[in-house]
């Protein structure tokens, strides 16, 4: 393991078999991310960004390649260990929010804590803190249908952060939001990065969003075509 990489992948491929043709969503991707780094992943639609994020977030398995997460070789981990990693080490923010319907913001945020085995009172305080962090203290009892898109995404971010993960992965978090809300969200990410030293990976195809991160990785047709640091 080199100098404190939290994420290191080598020759990662992900292939989908669609009838006779094989879609190479990822085709030999190498990448390492150091602890506390903040980077954007850019690329045209269909270039494999979401696929890469899912693999990094342990939500999906690669067809081929090697992945070390915080020093552990992911291939060797059992399902239950992966579940625990998803719950505690990684926070994932989806483009489509993915909140539980008819369930209050507070309860949505408490979900990872329930599965992490956090008990009664602590669970509630931690969730309240996370919601305060994203500025939603006054909306805790609202369900997703009573919140704006920006607010829903902030609930999702609170949920991703509530377990104090080492890494926050966000797949086009501003994609479903208007640009003003998107800018606010990026400000929030910036603040979290500065104040908490969070490792942050943001997928975007908005150059303005990407410009806020020191490092930009470019994907095309499932391959890394650029990796610039300011």
């Amino acid at each position, binding site marked *: 393991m080199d100098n404190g990489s939290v994420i290191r992948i080598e020759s990662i491929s992900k292939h989908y078999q669609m009838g006779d043709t094989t879609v190479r969503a990822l085709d030999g991707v190498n990448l390492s991310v150091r602890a506390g780094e903040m980077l954007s992943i850019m690329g045209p639609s269909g270039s494999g960004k979401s696929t890469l994020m*899912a693999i990094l*977030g342990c*939500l*999906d*398995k690669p067809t081929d390649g090697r992945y070390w997460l915080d020093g552990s070789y992911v291939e060797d981990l059992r*399902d*239950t260990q992966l*579940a*625990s990693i*998803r*719950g*505690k080490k990684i926070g*994932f923010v*989806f483009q489509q929010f*993915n909140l*539980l*319907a*008819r*369930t209050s913001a507070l*309860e949505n945020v408490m*979900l*990872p804590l*329930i*599965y*992490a*085995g956090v008990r009664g009172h602590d669970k509630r305080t931690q969730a309240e803190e996370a919601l305060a962090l994203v500025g939603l203290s006054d909306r805790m009892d609202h369900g997703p249908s009573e919140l704006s898109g920006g607010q829903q995404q902030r609930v999702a971010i609170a*949920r991703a952060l509530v*377990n104090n993960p080492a890494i926050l992965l966000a797949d086009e978090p501003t994609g479903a939001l208007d640009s003003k809300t998107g800018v606010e969200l990026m400000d929030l990410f910036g603040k979290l990065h500065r104040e908490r030293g969070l490792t942050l990976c943001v997928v975007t195809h908005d150059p303005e969003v990407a410009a806020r991160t020191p490092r930009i990785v470019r994907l095309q047709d499932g391959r890394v075509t650029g990796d610039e640091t300011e």
Partner: protein
Amino acid sequence: MNVFANIRVALRALATNKLRSVLTMLGIVIGVAAVVALMAIGNGATASITEQIEGIGSNLVTVFPGSFEHGGQRIQAALTYEDYMALEQHVERVNAIVANVSQGMQLTYAGNTVDVQVTATLPAYQQVRTVEVANGRFFLRSDGASRARVVVLGSQTATDLFAGLNPLGRTIRIGDVFFEVVGVLESKGGGGFGNEDEIALIPLETGYTRLFGRNAFSHGQRKVNDVSMSAATPEDVEWVMVQIERILRQRHGLKLSDDLDFTVFSQNAILETFDEITATLTIFLGAIAGISLLVGGIGIMNIMLVSVTERTREIGLRKAVGARRGTIMFQFLIETVVLSLIGGVTGIALGWGIAYGVSAADLVQADVQANTIAMAFFFAAFVGIFFGIYPASRAARLSPIEALRYE
């Protein structure tokens, strides 16, 4: 995460999706209620029919004139009073024996008329058919000897004719002949089958000489509609039947190779016939109940399938935030067990209520049995749990991202 936290998660999920929970439960409720109610009605009907047949008179053996042989062709022949006399003298192991002549006739009292089966019989009728007199007396040998115009009425007939008046000592008209009411029988109860309470009984000799006229005679012989007797014990029924056949063959001049021109019937045979009928009834009700369960099951399945997309995504999300597969499965198990339990208990209560209502309305004395309850409950629970767990187990096997993308 501990078991109790997970149970809370499951209950929370049920409470969050009340409509889905209620609709799922509805399938179980309907299925279980239908089975419990229908089987209770079926059991009750069976019990009441059996009871009524047994009430006709225990160990009853009856001889009718004529028989069905030769592929359904009827052999005509009369049964006579002399046949009765011969049986009365020679058949062993018999407690009581009577000859009956009956005919449907009109009874009239003060403008009220009823049409009933009027049976001319002997005092031993009481023992043979196990009937009790509620009011007054049964007729005696002396009534027959004096060809007395006395009549004993079935309880329903008495009610219909006298509408509350005390019938004893009053004179009614049977056809054109006047009779004095000397007794009213106790109700045989039940109702619906056999009209045991809608009868009128008169002395046999009176019937021959004063009421039935030429109808009761054939070639100058006194005809009887049947000869009934009660064997001393149930084990004697077979032997009594054999004796009857031997004696009547001889009297009617039938060789062993000839077909019988009379029919010997035991209550056991009737019971067997009715056992078949009630078995059919039970199968029929069981089939309806089974269909209800199936419909309920399909209802459960539909709700589960309709919600499978939402639930698959929910499972994907729960896994994405750290839930293990086992934890998810346990949550779904708890959900379905709770739904099946509440639905099952509600269904049992509803089915019981229906059975109670049917009994209270005096249609049938419904009989709720433990094994039907158990069967309905376990089937519904099985269907509920199966259709709840199966889609969940499939979804939980997907990677979180596949589950989240499911549509």
